[in-house]
């Protein structure tokens, strides 16, 4: 049974991207929006729209009751949560089910287990996935922290159990810094996630962030769609992603893919998900699993020719995946650059403003996912992501040349508007990045 109407519980480029696939599938779409987004592109892209709250995300996009009400009154059968906001909230998934709505994502109990990063680490250890030396569960006292730290060794990283998305973590390099960092991370975790539990792991300075895309249906099929390299990060925030990972040994690559499939199977995962691994010293370790569509999913779509959102929707409606692992053969290289409304001169502070000029690039093998348009005022309440530029080519160098051309074409201007485009062009031209030798500290240590 297919869905007649899908409510997209998100905003910005991802809401539009999901609606596009819905339209191709003949599904009616409903947008929800805050008062700050009355004029936003995702509202225009939908067949119907409901204003669900004021600008503050907590009272609109994060309000489960408001989203559910909007879904019920518009006759939606299913809710696509996009990424961020309610996308990995097990309570929201549960409330959807209670109201007869299909949550397009994994089951609530799976979300609850994987949302707790300490539990996820333990589960994946049990499933046979390699993890870095660390605490078996959460670290609930300073004494426990000291004891564990001496066994794990330095540097180590303290992470919020309820964290994710690069927030709520602290790297500790010396024993003297341990307890202040422990207390600070707990306080931050409490403030940001409402949960002060933390866990600890060995920290790798010289590592690559490689993640594996999986796709699972409710009929026992679990597939992988290769990896993405997301090592270009600024303070744990991804900026450039690509598939496949450059220069990865084929054996390492297939070992990671097998581990991801094994992990997804072990927890009964359904839908699209991502296993994040750290690749270091010729080995790899499980970090966390993301139970949603990722920002960087288009690079995988480009090399595999698979619409991941379409598969998410089909799986959620109970269909079996129509492809086999043998059908999934990657072709060429795809790179994504995140164009954020940020000011490099002010330490990448969000720089929202009115987009007086907004002309995205085009041409062969260039995909731009954006909610920007000329004359639109970027609201200050939300994520600074303005556009994703994705370029494909048979070879990596050609893809990067194409990316530079596309970024040069992209015209964004307005009073107070600054973007990451100049930085992205520097990265694309950087010899270390061009050689595929970049690690996660690449941007933060580069002059």
């Amino acid at each position, binding site marked *: 049974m297919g869905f007649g109407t899908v409510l997209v519980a998100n905003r910005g480029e991802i809401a539009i991207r999901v609606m596009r696939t819905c339209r191709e599938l003949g599904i009616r779409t409903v947008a929800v929006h805050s*008062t700050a987004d009355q004029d936003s592109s995702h509202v225009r892209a939908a067949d119907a729209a409901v*204003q669900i709250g*004021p600008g503050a995300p907590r009272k*609109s996009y994060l309000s489960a*009751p408001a989203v559910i*009400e909007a879904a019920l009154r518009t006759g939606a059968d299913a809710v696509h949560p996009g990424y961020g906001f309610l996308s990995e909230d097990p309570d929201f998934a549960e409330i959807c089910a209670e*109201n007869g709505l299909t949550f397009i994502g994994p089951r609530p109990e799976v979300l609850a287990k994987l949302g707790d990063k300490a539990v996820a680490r333990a589960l994946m250890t049990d499933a046979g996935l390699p993890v870095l030396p660390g605490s078996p569960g959460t670290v609930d006292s300073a004494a426990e922290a000291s004891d564990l730290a001496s066994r794990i060794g330095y540097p180590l990283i303290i992470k919020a159990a309820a964290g994710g998305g690069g927030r709520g973590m602290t790297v500790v390099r010396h024993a003297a810094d341990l307890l202040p960092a422990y207390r600070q991370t707990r306080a931050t975790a409490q403030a940001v996630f409402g949960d002060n539990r933390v866990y600890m792991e060995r920290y790798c300075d010289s590592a690559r962030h490689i993640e594996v895309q999986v796709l699972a249906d409710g009929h026992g099929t679990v597939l992988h769609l290769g990896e993405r390299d997301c090592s270009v990060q600024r303070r744990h925030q991804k900026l450039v992603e690509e598939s496949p990972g450059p220069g990865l040994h084929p054996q390492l690559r297939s070992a990671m893919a097998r581990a991801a499939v094994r992990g997804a199977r072990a927890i009964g995962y359904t839908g699209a998900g991502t296993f994040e691994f750290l690749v270091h010293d010729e080995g790899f370790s499980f970090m966390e699993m993301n139970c949603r569509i990722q920002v960087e999913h288009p690079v995988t779509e480009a090399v595999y020719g698979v619409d991941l959102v379409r598969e998410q929707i089909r799986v959620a409606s109970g269909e079996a995946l129509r492809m086999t692992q043998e059908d999934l053969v990657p072709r060429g290289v795809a790179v994504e650059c995140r164009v954020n409304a940020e000011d490099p001169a002010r330490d990448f502070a969000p720089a929202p403003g009115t987009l007086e000029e907004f002309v995205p690039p085009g041409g062969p093998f260039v995909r731009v996912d954006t909610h920007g348009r000329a004359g639109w005022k970027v609201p200050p309440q939300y994520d600074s992501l303005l556009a994703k530029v994705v370029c494909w080519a048979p070879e990596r160098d050609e893809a990067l040349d194409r990316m530079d051309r596309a970024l040069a074409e992209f015209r964004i201007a307005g009073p107070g508007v600054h973007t990451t485009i100049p930085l992205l062009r520097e990265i694309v031209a950087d010899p270390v990045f061009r050689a595929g030798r970049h690690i996660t500290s690449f941007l933060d240590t580069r002059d």
Partner: protein
Amino acid sequence: MSELTRTQGSDDTFAGLDYDNSGLALADICRSIAEVVRVGPDKPRRVRVALGAASVEVEWEGDRGPAALVGPAPQEGTGAAGGAGEQILEGHRECAPLVGTFYAAPAPGAPPFVQPGDHVEKGQQLGIIEAMKLMNPLEATRPGRVVEVLVGDGEPVEYGEPLVLLDPDPAADGTDEGA
């Protein structure tokens, strides 16, 4: 009508009202004008809206003189307010605090909480908004006379949607004009 002019001044004279922005206020005014046009004796010849000075002018054929309506017409308007044939409606809109279904009465078949002409106190219940099977009372945020209940019983409402139009009492503490 032969002409419709929209002007938006720089001073936000609607800042004191519960509007999210002046654009919403302008939309409300336009809706009120449409209502006047609908119920008026014949089509107006000219409509002028100025948000900055908060004035609304409507001219009908046969030149019955300009009629001002809706919105707090500050200073300049009050002088002419005593003139014959003019109607001034001070409007305060009680808006939906959440998305849900509006109910005008406590139970099906029961008399509504309020009707046009009723006087309500601050905090008095005007209706119910049902969201997620929870009944949330809609209460008056200021005392006044009910001019109109703007949505029907059982209708879905969005966040911020105007539900009840009140003609507010002059403020006792003197913060409002009047008294």
